């Protein structure tokens, strides 16, 4: 396997063009906030028209922002906190055509109000009361879960339902107060028009949310916004009361409460980390999650938080983009905090407090986190050992290289690659499909590669991408050790996976061809046919003048040569100092000479017709048997 192929393969993967267009269209839709245009009729006898949305107008925004601020002043007085961050819901562009709520224009609703509302950043009212002080800031995770929950069940419109003590979801956008109530398997949706003036709430106009009577002019508290009738105008013209009830296919109130009551899920659902502790493993994280899920928690105001033993304290954190979640456990109190970092640097923070039913929850979680320290220590020890081993190998390699730099006749040492516990394989460079080698070829390969004279070298990027290269690798069965050698024409690159590559130049410029021949070819047997008279042979080599070889000895030599497999090689190299055996055949029919050159484990054979022109002489055929001492063995035979 060549890890570089990962990039080459991956680069061919592209995002389909139709997917690109879908993405761009989706972004364009979100940017434009286009709504459908259709007409629906309600059971109350009103005909509600859906108008095309207009983009928000600055004039209106300023007025609404003032109105919202006014709401906040009033709302705060009844303990309801509204979301007043810079990313306030934009002015309800659906009602843009009613520009100027006090200008006597009719409100509109969209086709699916629940989906529309759930698309907003809504808040919740946990226990059904409008007047409690715990309107929570929901996390994006919780909102998403609520959207999934409320969008999924099938619903049938019904006439009416007692929604007292329902679990509520609400938000205000523009001049409208939206509310979704869930009680058992019934969901209600309502939208109430709130006319916001530029002055004090006493001048605000509107309808009461709790009045089901058309034309009622009762004054009621609506989310802390005091409204009163406009005695000079006809409320029916100003306001369309909208309220719908749906029977759901499932009882979802309990699920909704579960999502609302578990803001902790937001942080412990993610890969949180514990301050002042090492990386927590997934197992440890799961252990903490299980423990927290098993706690009985009661939401309390901050003044009632039971912190207990302050020394037992742990903080879990999770951050994403502009949000930071923190869960602090001190004693038996869990405080969950969400901080939103605005693009302009401001921060908005919401914190909730929960008392647990056990006083030692911080200690329990600390014990789990402490286990990560022990695990971290052990991992560090293992890592140090591994690094030490790598450092040792690096040092060895460095010393080898240093030795090579000072010793021209350094020989490549591949004992590690061909060690007994190493499985040997090979593949053409860039192929990645490994092939095995027989024991015989393994031995021959070792013999071939372990006698290479080397010197430090460099390999260029161009050379690295050469097609003429082969990788020979070795690895232990458990893959704890591996080493590979990439063989180019006359260069060889060693890689032991953990350390850098070591490149060497060899004295064998046909190294690649010879190795490939060894790996891919079958050895040739019976190179020489037996010799018969009138064959006459002589031999010579360095320091020895031509000496005759008896025919019997010649055939013994031929037999010895035929006892080995010979692998084709590109070149024999220099014949200087080679053992040269000349076998002549001369009679009336032929006059030829067989030249056999032997040097170490190489043999080169050429048969020349003595009557032919020089350029018609047969080229030498070169082979190698990879038995280094072969020629010495033959010399012994010749000298006997």
């Amino acid at each position, binding site marked *: 396997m060549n890890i570089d192929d990962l990039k080459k393969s991956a680069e061919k993967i592209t995002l389909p063009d139709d997917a*690109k267009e879908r993405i761009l269209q989706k*972004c364009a839709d979100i*940017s434009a906030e286009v709504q459908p245009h259709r007409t629906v009729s309600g059971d109350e006898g009103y005909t509600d028209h859906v108008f095309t949305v207009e983009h928000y107008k600055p004039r209106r925004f300023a007025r609404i922002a003032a109105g919202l601020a006014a709401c906040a002043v009033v709302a705060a007085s009844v303990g309801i906190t509204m979301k007043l961050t810079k990313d306030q819901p934009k002015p309800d562009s659906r009602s843009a055509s009613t520009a100027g709520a006090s200008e006597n224009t009719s409100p509109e609703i969209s086709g699916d109000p629940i989906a529309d509302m759930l698309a907003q950043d809504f808040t919740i009212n946990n226990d059904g009361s409008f007047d409690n002080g715990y309107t929570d800031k929901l996390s994006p995770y919780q909102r998403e879960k609520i959207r999934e929950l409320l969008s999924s069940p099938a619903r049938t419109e019904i006439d009416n339902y007692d929604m007292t003590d329902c679990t509520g979801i609400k938000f205000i956008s523009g001049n409208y107060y939206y509310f979704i109530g869930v009680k058992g398997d019934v969901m209600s949706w309502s939208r109430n028009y709130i006319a916001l003036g530029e002055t004090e709430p006493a001048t605000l106009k509107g309808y009461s949310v709790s009045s089901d009577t058309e034309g009622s002019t009762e004054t009621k508290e609506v989310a802390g916004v005091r409204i009163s009738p406009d005695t000079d105008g006809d409320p029916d013209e100003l306001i369309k009361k909208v309220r719908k009830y749906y029977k759901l296919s499932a009882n979802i109130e309990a699920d909704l409460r579960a999502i609302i009551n578990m803001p902790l899920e937001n942080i412990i659902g993610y890969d949180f980390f514990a301050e002042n502790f090492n990386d927590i493993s997934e197992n440890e994280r799961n252990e903490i999650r299980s423990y927290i899920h098993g706690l009985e928690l009661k939401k309390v105001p901050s003044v009632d938080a039971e912190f207990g033993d302050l020394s037992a304290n742990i903080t879990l954190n999770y951050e994403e983009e502009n949000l930071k979640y923190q869960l602090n456990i001190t004693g038996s109190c869990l405080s969950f905090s969400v901080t939103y970092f605005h693009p302009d640097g401001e921060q908005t923070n919401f914190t909730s407090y929960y008392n647990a039913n056990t006083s030692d929850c911080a200690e329990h979680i600390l014990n789990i986190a402490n286990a990560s320290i022990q695990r971290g220590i052990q991992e560090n020890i293992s890592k140090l050992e591994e690094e030490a081993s790598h450092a040792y190998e690096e040092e060895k390699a460095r010393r080898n290289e240093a030795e090579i730099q000072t010793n021209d006749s350094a020989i490549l040492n591949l004992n590690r690659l061909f060690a007994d516990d190493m499985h040997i394989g090979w593949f053409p460079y860039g192929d990645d499909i490994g092939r095995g080698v027989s024991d015989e070829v393994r031995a021959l390969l070792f013999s071939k590669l372990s006698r290479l004279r080397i010197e430090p070298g460099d390999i260029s990027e161009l050379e690295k991408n050469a097609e003429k290269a082969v990788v020979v690798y070795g690895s232990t069965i458990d*893959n704890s050790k591996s080493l590979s050698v990439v063989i180019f024409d006359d260069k060889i690159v060693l890689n032991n996976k953990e350390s850098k590559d070591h490149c060497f130049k060899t004295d064998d410029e046909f190294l690649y061809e010879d190795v490939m021949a060894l790996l891919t070819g079958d050895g040739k047997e019976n190179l020489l046919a037996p010799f018969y008279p009138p064959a006459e042979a002589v031999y010579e080599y360095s320091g020895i003048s031509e000496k005759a070889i008896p025919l019997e000895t010649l055939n013994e030599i031929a037999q010895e040569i035929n006892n080995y497999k010979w692998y084709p090689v590109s070149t024999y190299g220099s014949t200087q100092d080679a053992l040269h055996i000349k076998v002549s055949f001369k009679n009336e029919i032929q006059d030829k000479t067989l030249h056999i050159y032997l040097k170490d484990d190489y043999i080169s054979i050429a048969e020349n017709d003595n009557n032919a022109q020089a350029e018609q002489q047969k080229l030498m055929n070169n082979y190698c048997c990879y038995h280094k001492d072969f020629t010495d063995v033959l010399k012994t035979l010749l000298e006997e």
Partner: protein
Amino acid sequence: MLKTDCVREAVEEYGDMLYRICLVMLKNTADAEDAVQDTFIRYMQKAPAFSSDEHEKAWLIKVAANICKDMLRQRNRTAELDEAALNTLTAADEDSHILEALTQIPEKFRIVLTLHYIEGYKVNEIAEMIGKTSSAVKMRLAKGRKLLEEKYRKEYMQ
């Protein structure tokens, strides 16, 4: 919010890269496309001012990786490579199963191997992106390579 033209430019520039990362992480073409879409929506809505192209690219990768992690968390994290994703990967290079092998190793190794070997990020850059130390990234690279090699040899080499 960024203009649509800016988003188009970003989709052309980084769409393929993000898709590769998401496909390797999620092993599912539909989910990968959704993740890329969500990334660009966030880019349109929340992208900060970037100091350089590299900063922008790193931000997109970080967001995409987080989205993938969230999606993996919400579904079966051991989901198998779906057929469409498999076809995409094998069409990339019919002779190499290395991508398939990559999708089969655990997610935390997949992301570092992808960022390092496919996208060419250095260890310290990856560490910053995924919120880990350089040592942790090095170890994940080393272990990830080892797992990838083991998976590759076991499944695809005779």
